[in-house]
Every structure is written in structure tokens, then in C-alpha cells.
């Protein structure tokens, strides 16, 4: 601030020392042509001009800094979901003894994170297929085509999607229709005689559940 002030006091050349030359020139050029260089008031006029230029530069700087600071929480909060940390946790689905070998069953679970505001959408469902004692496949209910809920049919051992007719075999592999791949699978583990899955996000083509 004081640097600029003293520069300007030296005379007209002060303008060339300005950091923000463009703003300065725009303000000054019309007058520079009409003002006589030898005139008494020159120094005074120059000082006035540079004060104007300084105010403009200061205003621009302050608004830019202030605007950027205000934008941080606004843009930050708006884009926060894109940070996309995986909030998944291990969720118990039930006792091992409750899963019969050879069966595929629909199991519901509650999202490991969320708010009371989520209502029913905090709940979720998955298909647990018990291949043999202690060996499982856990499928997301979402069709790999566009996410509609697939339904399990025990008799034909098929998952069918009501939207565009995607069909999957009991091992989750694609049987027919538009899906580009088989059903999404959750990671599972056995802890304390419980079957647990790692869940908490909508499965999608980019990554499994």
C-alpha cells in the first residue's frame, strides 16, 4: 500500500510501476492525451489519477479475495458428495445356521450410516446364496443394466429384472437381456458365526458394491 503511494508521488511514471497496469491504463488514457505535461497541476492530477487507480485495484482485490472466501463453503458443500469416500462398513446379515445350503434368500439390512431423515431409503436388501456351509455369494438387488430391483425365482433359479428384461443365473452371471455384466456382489466374511457384508453404497459399473 505505502509502496504504491510513494511510487505515485514521484510523478507520472508511477503508473508504469503499478502491478495492475491494464486497469490503470484504461482509467488514465483519455485524460493523458488532453492533459498538458508542463502544467502546474500535473503532479496533482497524477496523484488524483493514481489514487483512483489504487482504489479500483484495491476494490478488485478485496472483492476477489472476499468472493473466493465466500465461495469456499458454498462450492465446497455443494461438491462435497463428489469426494466420494466409501462409507461402507461390515454389516451382520444373520446367523450362519439360518442360511440353508442351496438356498438363495432376500435379506434386508440397514445402511451403516445415514440420518433419521432417510426414512425407508435407509433400508436396503440383498440376495444371499449359500453354496455350501460357510461359502456364500451376496448379490446386490440392483440390475447391472440400470439399477432396477431384480427378483429371484427359486423354481427356474433365475433373477429377472422388471424394467428391460435382464436375466441372471443363480450364480449371478448374465443369462440374457441388456445387462453388460453379471449381478454386483458384496464382499462377505464370517465373524462370530455371523455372515457379514461390506455395504453402504449403491453398487455400480465403476466398482462393485
Amino acid at each position, binding site marked *: 500500500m505505502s509502496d504504491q503511494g510513494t511510487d505515485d508521488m514521484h510523478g507520472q511514471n508511477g503508473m508504469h510501476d503499478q502491478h495492475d497496469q491494464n486497469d490503470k491504463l484504461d482509467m488514465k488514457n483519455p485524460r493523458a492525451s488532453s492533459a498538458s505535461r508542463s502544467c502546474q497541476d500535473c503532479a496533482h492530477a497524477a496523484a488524483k489519477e493514481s489514487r483512483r487507480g489504487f482504489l479500483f485495484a484495491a476494490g478488485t482485490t478485496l472483492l476477489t479475495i472476499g468472493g473466493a472466501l465466500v465461495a469456499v463453503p458454498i462450492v465446497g458443500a455443494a461438491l462435497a458428495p463428489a469426494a466420494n469416500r466409501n462409507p461402507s462398513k461390515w454389516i451382520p446379515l444373520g446367523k450362519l445356521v439360518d442360511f440353508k445350503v442351496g438356498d438363495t434368500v432376500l435379506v434386508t439390512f440397514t445402511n451403516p450410516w445415514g440420518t433419521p431423515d432417510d426414512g425407508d431409503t435407509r433400508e436396503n436388501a440383498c440376495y444371499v446364496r449359500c453354496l455350501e456351509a460357510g461359502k456364500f455369494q451376496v448379490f446386490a438387488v440392483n440390475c447391472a443394466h440400470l439399477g432396477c430391483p431384480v427378483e429371484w425365482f427359486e423354481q427356474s433359479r433365475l433373477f429377472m429384472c422388471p424394467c428391460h428384461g435382464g436375466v441372471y443365473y443363480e450364480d449371478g452371471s448374465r443369462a440374457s437381456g441388456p445387462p453388460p455384466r453379471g449381478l454386483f456382489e458384496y464382499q462377505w466374511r464370517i465373524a462370530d458365526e455371523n455372515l457379514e457384508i461390506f455395504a*453402504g453404497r449403491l453398487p455400480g459399473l465403476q466398482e462393485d458394491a
Partner: protein
Amino acid sequence: MTQEKMKPALMVKRAALDGLRWLDDRTGILWMLRKSVFHRVPRNAKWWYVFGSATMMFFTIQIASGIVLATIYAPSAAQAYESLVYIDEQVPFGWMLRALHGWSSNAMCIMMLIHLAQVFLHGAYKFPRELTWVSGVFLCLTTLGLAFTGQIMRWDADAYWGLGIGAAIADRAPGIGNQLRALLLGGPVISGATLTRFFTLHVFILPGAAIALIGCHLYSVLRNGISEMPKAGEPVDPATYREGYEARVQKDGVPFYPDAARHDMVFCGAMLLVLIGVAAWFGPFGPGALPDPRIIEASPRPDGLFLWLFAALALLPPASETFLLLVGPPVAIAILAAVPFLSNRGERAPSRRPISVLLVVLLTTGFAVLTLLGVRSPWSPQMKAWTSTPSDIAFIADRTPLELQGALEFQFAQCRNCHSIGDAGGKRGPDLTTVATRLSWDQLVRQIQQGGGNMPAYGKALSSVETQALVAYLSTLDGGDLRATLTGALEAQPARDAAPEPVAAEHSPRQVQ
């Protein structure tokens, strides 16, 4: 006597004039009115020009009804559904308010699309009205956005799974799919944050954008004038158009209000009554099933306006789907917005622009056919057909026990979800009413066990006995039953057409292991 009587009236009139003069001095309102509602328009701007006004009238209804709805609706995933039921059942006139908002949304979109087609067919987008068109294209997108986000406000099963479809489409964007999806949903799942996000879009961002765009749209209409009815042989030449138009409108034009506005008023008034009638008769949209992902028996369908998209997603070749979903819309929008720059001058009359007419016909037909297919959705398995679709007696009568067992397998193995017999059942796979005339016993066995042609293989799901029974049954579907179902006189048919039982008996032990 009369002068004395007139005096107070005169004074009132003078005071009113003084007041108006004061108001005009401070606001310039008369100048604004002269420039807007009284601006001169071509004399022949009549019934073809009413659709834009009707679109705006329905938008006004949306704003008014939407504001009141927003005072009652609870934009919370836990309470939205119940607040809609509350509006429908408890709030005085609540159901009619929702019905008006829903149907007016449809009406607005229909009027907007007709307006778009009319402007395109009349070449009204040409010089100097390019930006009128461009602002109209963005208005069109904003309106469709409002319609889609409004469907989400219902927060029922269709809304929930519709969001899932949106998320799955966003997810396909290479590299940024996850981030895009998270921004769309407001997190890694569909949740309360998703509803508040779409609520913000639906009641703040998109209406704000629409109002701003309507301002631009109307301003450019006022600045460049309403186009005249196109006449063949009167091409637009940017060098001379403005002077010619000004001269014609000054010489032969009429003020928009009241001359041209009469048509708009009659049409809008009639449409308003139609809207009230339709809303009162059909009532509000939804809410449908609960937005509970645990309820797996959902069959999500979009609103009518987006059924064509639903159909396209089922019919696009899977290999091209991601590309078309991500690249198609931006390219289509860019082409639409670029129309006035691609063809800026020349003939406006539809009779001299056959390609434009053909385009409108093709696009309209295409969207209509896709919408119709979307209503029927033959590609969707009928998830309940195997338990709820009855078999016509003609397709069961006179069968052997083995064949009857096959008929049961046909139900229990969910064959019927995709295949019809006698027009009852799914349409995903071929109709099997006369399958025995097309496929031999061996071919039937092979098709069931190995699948193919978009049919899953049933080799692991059905035992050999079950397959044998099923094929025995299918082999009786040789068309002989059709006469019975068609005439409805089973008794009149003396004997069923020769069924391939002997062949079946001969083949079955060998073929089905």
C-alpha cells in the same frame, strides 16, 4: 344540472389520470406497455401462434400451485410420502391442487413441444430470431428438467428406482462416473440427501432458470417481433428483412392487445377448462408404492413424458448403449440449438422445406412409437404371470397326465413370465401358442436346456423329468387349440388335431436324460 352531476365523475377521472401520469413519470409504465402488450404484430398471427402463450399460462399455474404445495409438502425422505397422502386426504382441495400441478405439468410440456414444432415448421427461427430459438431450446430443457424432478418429488417406488436409473446412467461416464453419480444423489446411496437435492432443483434452481429464460425469450420476441405466417416465395434475406418487416407491421399490423391476443385468450381459456376437467376426472398422480428398497416386487415405470426413453433403453443395442446415453443427449441438444445458425435465411414456408417437414414427421412418429412401446413394454418379463395368469381351458383339455405336468412346469418354471400361450403371458420371448409347428421335440429340448437367442438355459434349473413333461406339453401346442379358443366352442371340436404323442413317447426316454 347535468354539469353539476358530472363534476364529481370528472374529478375522479382527472384524479385517476393525474395518478396514472404520476405513476408513468416515476416508472415509465406506459412506455413499457406500449412496447409490450400494445406492440404491433402481423395481422395474420392468429391460431398458429397460441401455443407459446398456452405454455406460459400452464407455467403460471405451476408456479402458483407449486408455491402452495411447497408450503405443505415435507421435503424429507422420511415424511415426503406421508405429506403427499396428507395433502390428498386432509388438506381442503389438496387432491385437486396436486392434480392440477401434475396435469398442468403434462399440458405445459405438450404445448411447449407443439410450439417448438410449429416454430420449426414455419421457419420462424431464421434471421433475426436466432436467439429467440436458442432461449426456447434452453426453456425446453429446463421444462423437461422440471418434469423429471417433479416426478422425484412424489418419492414413491417409481421415484426411488428412477433415481437408481439416473445414477446408473451417470455411473457410466468414463473416469468421472462415481463423482457424477455422487453429485446427482448427494452421496453414495439414494437417501434423504437425494430428495433435498432434487427439491432444491425443482423449487429454486429450475423455476428460477425458467423465469429468467422466459424473460430472455419474451424480450427477444419483443425486440425482433413475431414472425409473419410463412409464404412460399418470400424468402428471408438478412440484408433487407428488418426494414421490410418493420414497414409491413407498421402499415398492416395490429396491436398485440387486444387484436392478436383474442386468439390466445380463447385458446388458453379453453385449455384451462380442459385442464380442470382432466385434473378433476383423473385426479393426482400417485404417490405409488412406498419408496422402500426392501420391497423387491417393484416394476418401476417413468411418467408418460419419459416413456420413450424407457423404451429406447430397452431397445438400444447394449454395445452402443453407454456411448449413446452419454454422447447422444449433448449432441442432440447442440444440433437443436444450432438450427437457426445452420439455416439462417431462405424460404420459411413448409411447402418449400420438405426436409424440415420430413424431420418433424419422422421425429414425431419415432417418439410416438417409442412411447407406445414404453406403455406396452413387451421386453419386460411379466413378473406375476407364472402365478396369476390363467390358462385357457383349450390349452389344457384332453392332455395326458405327462402333458398336464408339463403345463404345470410351464407355470412353475416362470416360462409364462416371458412366453404367452393364447395371448396370455409375457411378451419378452416368442408366443408359444403354436410352437409345435415350428420346433421339433429335439429342438424344444435343446432350446430349454441350452437356451440361446436371448433365452436363459434351463438345463440346471429343470430335472430331466421336468424337461420331458414340459416338452411333451409344448409339443401339443400345434395350433389345433386355436380354433377352440377363437370360436369359444370346445365341445364343437370333435377331436383335437393329431398330437405328436407317439413321437413324444418314442423320443422322450432317449432325448431327456
